């Protein structure tokens, strides 16, 4: 039987990969989420080639035009092609989503690891400060920071990353606290490992699945956050397209062309939902208690 062959011929690492893939494929929601996420990333990366028009090209003969064969999703108040702007807008969203999460991880994970591993006063200080920051809702924090940094996509990304860090600090601290008590830690110390070796080579890899799941939950929050910041004028600046600025532009024309608000809105919902269900799926398949 071929299944027996795969088991005996492959390395353990490959076997685990096969198992995880099997578990993943049994979850249709997660698969759908992955498909949408991959689609969005491809669209964002190849926007210049995919978009039928330049996102800034105006056509004054077709202002607020309804969907047609020429403009599939119609045009906005300056006659710009809505579909092209949506595709280019995916760029801003994906950039903000991924890079804000990277920023958050880079800040939060080392702090959480140090707090959880060393405990003592340093842990108390970090944990209390995190609690204080967590008292502010994520968006309030991000809006405040973005207002301080000044409006641009880069600053909005930084603000969202810093805003998302406290929650991640808490998660990685908790995980480090738990991993620290595992027997392999004293065993590694007894084998002469230094603190840095234990933190980065033993504890961090053991947290990777938790962090991956956290990342897939932070990305949609950052995508929504970017849209909100851009809507408020604190993120991407017009005329650069972003789902947030598109929503804002649509605001004045809600009665004449409601689709201009509905379309970017749906895009935001779809992106956030896709990342969320993907994250849920990943959490399930990495959970050792999962049997399916």
């Amino acid at each position: 039987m071929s299944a027996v062959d795969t088991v005996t011929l492959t390395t353990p690492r490959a076997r685990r990969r096969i198992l995880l893939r099997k578990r993943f494929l049994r979850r249709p929601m997660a698969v759908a989420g992955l498909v949408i996420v991959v689609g969005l990333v491809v669209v964002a990366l190849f926007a210049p080639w995919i978009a039928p028009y330049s996102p800034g090209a105006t056509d004054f003969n077709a202002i607020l035009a309804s969907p047609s064969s020429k403009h599939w999703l119609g045009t906005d108040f300056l006659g710009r092609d809505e579909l092209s702007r949506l595709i280019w807008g995916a760029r801003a969203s994906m950039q903000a989503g991924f890079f804000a999460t990277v920023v958050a991880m880079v800040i939060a994970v080392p702090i959480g690891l140090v707090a959880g591993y060393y405990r003592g006063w340093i842990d108390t200080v970090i944990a209390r400060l995190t609690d204080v920051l967590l008292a502010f809702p994520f968006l309030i924090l991000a809006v405040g920071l973005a207002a301080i940094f000044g409006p641009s996509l880069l600053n909005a990304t930084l603000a969202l990353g810093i805003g998302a860090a406290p929650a991640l600090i808490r998660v990685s601290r908790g995980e480090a606290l738990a991993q620290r008590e595992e027997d392999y830690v004293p065993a590694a110390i007894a084998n002469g490992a230094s603190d840095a070796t234990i933190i980065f080579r033993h504890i961090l890899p053991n947290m990777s699945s938790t962090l991956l799941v956290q990342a897939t939950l932070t990305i949609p929050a950052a995508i929504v956050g970017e849209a909100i910041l851009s809507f408020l004028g604190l993120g991407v600046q017009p005329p650069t397209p972003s789902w947030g600025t598109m929503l804002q532009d649509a605001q004045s024309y809600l009665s004449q062309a409601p689709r201009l608000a509905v379309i970017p809105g749906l895009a935001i919902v779809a992106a956030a939902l896709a990342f969320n269900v993907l994250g849920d799926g990943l959490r399930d398949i990495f959970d050792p208690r999962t049997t399916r």
Partner: protein
Amino acid sequence: MPDPLLQVSDLSVRFATDEGPVHAVDRMSFSLNAGEVLGIVGESGCGKSVTCMSIVRLLPETATIEGQALFDGRDLLALSPRRLSAVRGREISFVFQEPMTSLNPVFTVGRQIGEVLQRHLGLSRGAARARVIELLQLVRIPAPERRVDEYPHQLSGGMRQRVMIAMALACQPKVLVADEPTTALDVTIQAGILDLLRDICERLGTAVILITHNLGVVADIADRVLVMYAGRKAEESDVGELFAHPQHPYTIGLLGAIPRPSDGEVVERLREIPGRVPSLRELPVGCAFAERCPRADETTRAHQPELREIRPDHLVACFHPGEDGA
């Protein structure tokens, strides 16, 4: 006799707790010669593990360690942390009780053993891998070329303990501390692991400190035995001497609690030691064993017995030593 490899003198360990200090180890002294197997025996919580962990300072920060542990002319208790990590795993290594959890679950066993080799001996990744396969062969793991790429969860308990032993012996340490290495294992596997330990250490000339509560294990592989009670040394002698002429009533009690199926037709009820171990928080003024001792009297309760050499090379801390019925 040559200088001992490890000379521990007046080792005391205290833990600070909310309810006051706990004296886990009190003025322990012992020595270990190169290539020797020393068994440390005692009940749970008598300070066996703490004694050994304190030698390379593996205890949490709440512990205060006093005394001296001379190893190769250096006092391990006064060594800088950096120097100490060069000793840990390189010259003194440990095998712990729990093979199921002492390995990092996310790395292959090859990578974990290899990491120790890379750190202490500066081997390259490739050289380390080749050496790991040799080591796995040494601890008699079948098909080491394949096992080297497996994760801990794919190995049985006995296999994992073999991996732990391979890791501990990777840098050919001078001292191997085995902390109840077989307690968590199946009885049928225990003997195999012990034989393996004894065999390899004999071959490599490694001295072993074997911590156990199982006198059978000690009789099996130790050269010398140290009996601990409530953080103090109760009795120490060579293994044959101890089993033939136990002097301390605690040792006699321990020996009486071992089932001996070959003892004749009448199957006796096993003798137990009455009472419980005193709290290490408030040790009695006199002998810690007095409450449970059939030979206790006024002196025993009022004074602490000092170690005395009762017979040649046989130390006992008791006011009324002697074999039962003698």
